[in-house]
């Protein structure tokens, strides 16, 4: 009884054990749920069709998006299309894509009242948290891969896989251009994951899907406005949105990697801080009050 009484003092109930088996089960369940939701299907369909629509419009209209990086080249080389799409997407589409699942994955359980149903099974809160966060990150990755692939396909099929002139005026062969396009898209993954972390945090704290999806997008826009005005340098350097433009350094001769490294570090910090905070809130909250 002594040991039992002592155990009674430990009333926190925080789950400490996260097993791979448990996380896998949660990811499987989340994947099945996403497959059953029209929202995820619509987002992925938009990622597939959007670039083709963009390439078709560019081909049909007389003017070009000249104020955009590589905008002048969209009729000369299909490799300019994914870069223009990337430039547009970085403004607001990527924050939307990355928060559409992450911002809803936790709060949806509050909306449906299903936390009680889930947490009375054999999985811990920690496993649910890790599984759901991995699912959110996985969906962000999938959406970006689909958007990038579709953009490249749209450019090469609608315009053609021709050589492209980089930002230093060097003509790049199609194979090299493709390599750099892929790298450019890969460079937006860290900030995309950072936004996913932010969406997860907002979703866990607010328990509202509207806030979970909307707030990261609003924050992204506010950061972009902040970057436009001549604010203090430390503030500008701490903006995650600046990492979305770090790929420009890959299209110069020689390459400059400093913005890429800095953007990756800032993105990783956002991701880690947001996920740790969200995990603490999730572990300590009372369900159903």
């Amino acid at each position, binding site marked *: 009884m002594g040991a039992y009484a002592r155990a009674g003092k430990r009333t926190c109930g925080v789950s400490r054990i996260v097993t791979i088996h448990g996380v896998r089960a949660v990811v499987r369940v989340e994947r099945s749920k996403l497959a059953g939701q029209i929202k995820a299907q619509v987002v992925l369909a938009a990622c597939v069709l959007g670039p083709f629509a963009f390439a078709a419009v560019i081909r049909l209209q007389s003017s070009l998006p000249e104020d955009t990086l590589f905008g002048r080249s969209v009729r000369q080389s299909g490799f300019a299309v994914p870069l223009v799409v990337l430039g547009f997407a970085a403004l607001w589409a990527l924050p939307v894509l990355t928060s559409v699942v992450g911002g809803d994955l936790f709060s949806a359980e509050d909306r449906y009242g*299903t936390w*009680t*149903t889930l947490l009375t099974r054999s999985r811990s809160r920690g496993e649910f948290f890790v599984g759901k966060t991995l699912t959110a990150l996985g969906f962000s990755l999938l959406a970006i891969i689909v958007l990038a692939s579709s953009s490249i396909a749209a450019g090469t099929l609608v315009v053609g896989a021709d050589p492209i002139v980089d930002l230093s005026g060097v003509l790049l062969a199609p194979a090299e251009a493709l390599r750099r396009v892929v790298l450019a898209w890969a460079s937006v993954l860290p900030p995309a994951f950072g936004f996913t972390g932010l969406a997860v945090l907002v979703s866990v704290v607010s328990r509202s899907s509207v806030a979970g999806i909307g707030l990261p997008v609003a924050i992204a826009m506010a950061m972009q406005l902040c970057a436009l005005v001549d604010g203090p340098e430390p503030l500008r350097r701490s903006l995650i949105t600046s990492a979305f433009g770090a790929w420009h350094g890959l299209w110069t001769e020689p390459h400059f990697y400093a913005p890429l490294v800095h953007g990756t570090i800032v993105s990783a910090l956002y991701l880690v801080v947001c996920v740790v905070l969200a995990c603490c809130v999730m572990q300590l909250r009372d369900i159903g009050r």
Partner: protein
Amino acid sequence: MQRIALEALGVSKRYGDREVLDRVDLVARSGVLHGLLGPNGAGKTTLMRVLLGLVRRSAGAIRLLGRDLDACDGRVPNGVAGFVETPAFYPYLSGRQNLALLVDLDEEQGSNPRHRVTEAIDQVGLGAEADTQVRNYSAGMRQCLGIAAALLRSPRLLFLDEPTSSLDPAAARHVRTLARRLADGGTAVVWSSHDMSEVEELCSTLTVVNHGRIAFEGSVERLRERAPAMLHLLHTSNDAAALSLASCRRSLKVWNAGDDGLEISADVDALDAYVIALASAGVAVRSLERRTRSLESLFLELTVIRPSEWERTPVQANEHAESVAS
């Protein structure tokens, strides 16, 4: 003596200054249907949440199937199942798909998951609607799906929070039969309800909770022994005088029931004497009707009066009941 499946000792829960549960003890044994009874807001659901680890307790110790809840690392132990309030599911999936997801979240239990889902659906009689989206389910069907979800865990300790609240009489009877069958098979069933007659019919032991404290704990038989006289509703020409007359009589309790008149808890002899006394005092009895059976009377007595008042004399308690009613 059956094995103890649930042992909760001194469980408290505080939200700020508000004490929702105050040193609650609850013991349920294998093979026994244990009623958790109390009026709305008594703390039953909070207690269930605490027992299932959904809500952190402020104090106390909990053992589920012999395992300390804190040693389970936030997981509900295998063999423990149940639901709190109305069971919730994903509305865009069918009942079967929902259960298939849940079975994936349980530890491996040997048999084919698909077969287990079908078996659970059949047990609660949802076979015809299993492939319908849950958004089209009635409240009763969701309740049944909740029970099916609990059955998937092959429960040895089952928590059911007002499981018949949304069911039609036939479905409610089916669920009661199912619970009894599970108990007969060795499962400890904790059945939360605010319906005394349901618990009386179904359970052999019970705990009555009121204002977050235990008002009674023991067998239904023991409760019957303590049961007072039946409850009657009285309409008089002068309720104030009738109340005043009652305050002199220790053999009965009378309190104001608002527009309904006066409620009397008394045995037949005391009631007869009171009615005669009313007439002698010039108070006309306009109607006298039986309101509840004796066990319900006791339940009302246990739950209308605050725990701190239980040890007072009937007259004092009566006065308190009046103030509560008014």
